[in-house]
């Protein structure tokens, strides 16, 4: 691994100068570099699996949404047979967008420029005035469809990649599948996206939010101090630096760069601090406190869809926050409500690059499809109040990241390194069932460093 081929930027810097594997440091300049950004688009965003949405957004034949894979815009559409296709939103005739709407329903996508028409599966139907054969006679119609990405559905989540012959989705997930299944594949009818995503632009590089998504638990203590002041997370504002119960759990990760923070409710949230699972069976634990987003009537479905080991973890120390490499944040939290209840908040974010100095924050909000309508309503409200545009947790992140970006421009500042040197090292807790790289105890830098190593490995591949 240490001998991988790499690249040299025009000022002579190599990947090893930017990511210092001997000391676990990353040069701040990686956040603001046009050349590096172009390489990232080729080597990461055109190569790996990317999250685009959820199948419940496009339930009917012809339904489509327009999304982005890096800077490449795609149409995510369901065809007449129910299959989901991801096709480049670029007309092969003159390069116009084939879909100008963000979402809709159409069996035929006709480019508004010259009228070339395409089916939901991206295949070319024809150009106007058929007898004049306006697509010419050099290329056959079969060659003139929209460029298609490879698609994989996982728990209804729509992933796509341009790497047609690359790793399978299961290889991409690796050992983290055991944990992600507990969030996305646990009920008979799965998750439902509750509405179109929130979208907003932040003036910062995509990697600033993305590396934080790799289970940066430590920032919660200071940046999200208001969670402790508000009595939501355990600990008091006066004592959080002496005693920070919400920081302890098991961080799980893998060499693919994905990670999740598995946290006991009683340890993390003040309102659950009296709950003790001691001596209780898995079933009893689930009845006492179902995991975020699960209602009591859904508990039997967990046993049906997951292995006993997965259910045991979900009942005891569920995965709550984390990320999927390269640009997905996972937020499946208990999220206490202002009225004292707790129905959970389930959200995924993608951080879509918009140039070296901008990122689009897309916030997808979910509930279990079979959850009662009132629970879905509560969860939507809960999630909006905690996460995304106006979310009281994520407002603070959105204000912090652009300031890191501002610093990355300074000729001296950009030589500063980001440090991932507080390491626990892999350690398997007693009785732990899942695989992967495991970091029990206080949340440290290991998972984020694994994210950077996944980044390194992809960037080193020409």
């Amino acid at each position: 691994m240490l001998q991988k081929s790499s690249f040299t930027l025009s000022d002579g810097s190599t990947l090893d100068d930017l990511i210092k594997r001997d000391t676990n440091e990353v040069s701040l300049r990686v956040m603001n570099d046009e050349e590096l950004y172009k390489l990232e688009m080729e080597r990461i965003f055109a190569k790996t699996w990317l999250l685009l949405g959820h199948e419940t957004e496009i339930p009917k034949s012809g339904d489509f949404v327009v999304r982005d894979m890096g800077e490449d815009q795609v149409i995510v559409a369901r065809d007449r047979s129910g299959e989901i296709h991801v096709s480049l939103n670029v007309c092969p005739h003159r390069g116009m967008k084939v879909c100008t709407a963000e979402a809709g329903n159409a069996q035929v996508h006709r480019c508004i420029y010259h009228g070339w028409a395409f089916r939901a599966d991206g295949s070319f139907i024809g150009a106007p005035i058929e007898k004049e054969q306006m697509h010419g006679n050099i290329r056959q119609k079969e060659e003139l469809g929209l460029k298609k990405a490879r698609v994989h559905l996982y728990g209804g989540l729509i992933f796509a990649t341009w790497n047609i012959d690359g790793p399978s989705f299961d290889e991409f997930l690796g050992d983290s599948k055991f944990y992600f299944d507990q969030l996305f594949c646990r009920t008979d009818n799965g998750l439902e996206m509750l509405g179109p995503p929130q979208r907003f632009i932040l003036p910062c590089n995509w990697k600033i939010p993305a590396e934080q998504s790799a289970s940066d638990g430590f920032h919660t203590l200071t940046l999200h101090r208001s969670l402790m002041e508000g009595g939501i997370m355990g600990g008091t504002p006066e004592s959080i630096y002496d005693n920070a119960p919400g920081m302890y759990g098991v961080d799980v990760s893998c060499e693919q760069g994905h990670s999740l923070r598995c946290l006991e409710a009683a340890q993390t949230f003040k309102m659950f601090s009296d709950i003790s699972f001691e001596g209780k069976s898995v079933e009893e634990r689930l009845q006492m406190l179902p995991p975020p987003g699960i209602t009591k009537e859904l508990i039997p479905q967990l046993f049906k869809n997951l292995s006993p080991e997965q259910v045991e973890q979900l009942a005891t120390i569920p995965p709550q926050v984390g990320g999927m490499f390269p640009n997905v944040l996972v937020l499946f939290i208990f999220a206490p409500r202002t009225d004292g209840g707790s129905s959970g908040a389930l959200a995924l974010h993608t951080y879509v690059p918009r140039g070296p100095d901008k990122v689009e924050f897309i916030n997808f909000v979910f509930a279990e499809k079979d959850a009662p309508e009132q629970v879905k309503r509560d969860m939507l409200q809960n999630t909006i109040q905690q996460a995304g545009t106006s979310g009281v947790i994520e407002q603070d992140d959105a204000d912090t990241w652009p300031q890191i970006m501002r610093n990355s421009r300074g000729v001296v500042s950009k030589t500063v390194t980001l440090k991932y040197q507080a390491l626990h090292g892999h350690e398997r807790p007693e009785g732990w069932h899942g695989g992967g790289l495991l970091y029990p105890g206080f949340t440290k830098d290991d998972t984020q460093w694994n994210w950077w190593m996944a980044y390194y490995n992809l960037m080193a591949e020409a």
Partner: protein
Amino acid sequence: MVNYATAAVDQASVMRGLVSKKRVPLGSEIYNRILETLYDEAAALDERRFDDWIALLADDLVYTAPVRVTRSGPNKDRDVMRTMMHFDDTYQSILMRTGRLSKSAWAEDPPSRTRRFVTNVRVAECDIAEEYEVSSYLYVERSRFDVPHNETISAERRDIWRRGDGAYKLAKREIIVDQSTLGMSNFAIFL
């Protein structure tokens, strides 16, 4: 559930502006008092006098901001998507937000300098006595730190103001933002 299909689009997604036909004319006493209240509200928020703002809110307040989605063809005007929102708040959750702003809310500490411009105010009577539908345009300039470029947002607000004890209180507000992808990095400010 998201429904982008041509058929069965929620009619409410078209709803903009005033619903009631019983207009309260410009320059009338009621219109003037409501306009004055909107100006007072904007000043309270710009000056970060949150207690004064809370005093203008009814305790059954519903405060929302649906997302917009760019659509075409037969659905091109049905672009207010009320299945997802940027704000989805009640009086209680607004208190939670303002309470947080008095502590460690780094998103507004140091605070933004804001300027709220309220125009195009139209008022109509509701079916319920003493309640008024108020539609206004809002334009906000927001300055953060020493960044010389302001973040801005433009929106239509569809409000219900209720009269009681000689003052008007906000009972309902729907903020219809114009952008489908917001150019503002967060809504740590109120609109």
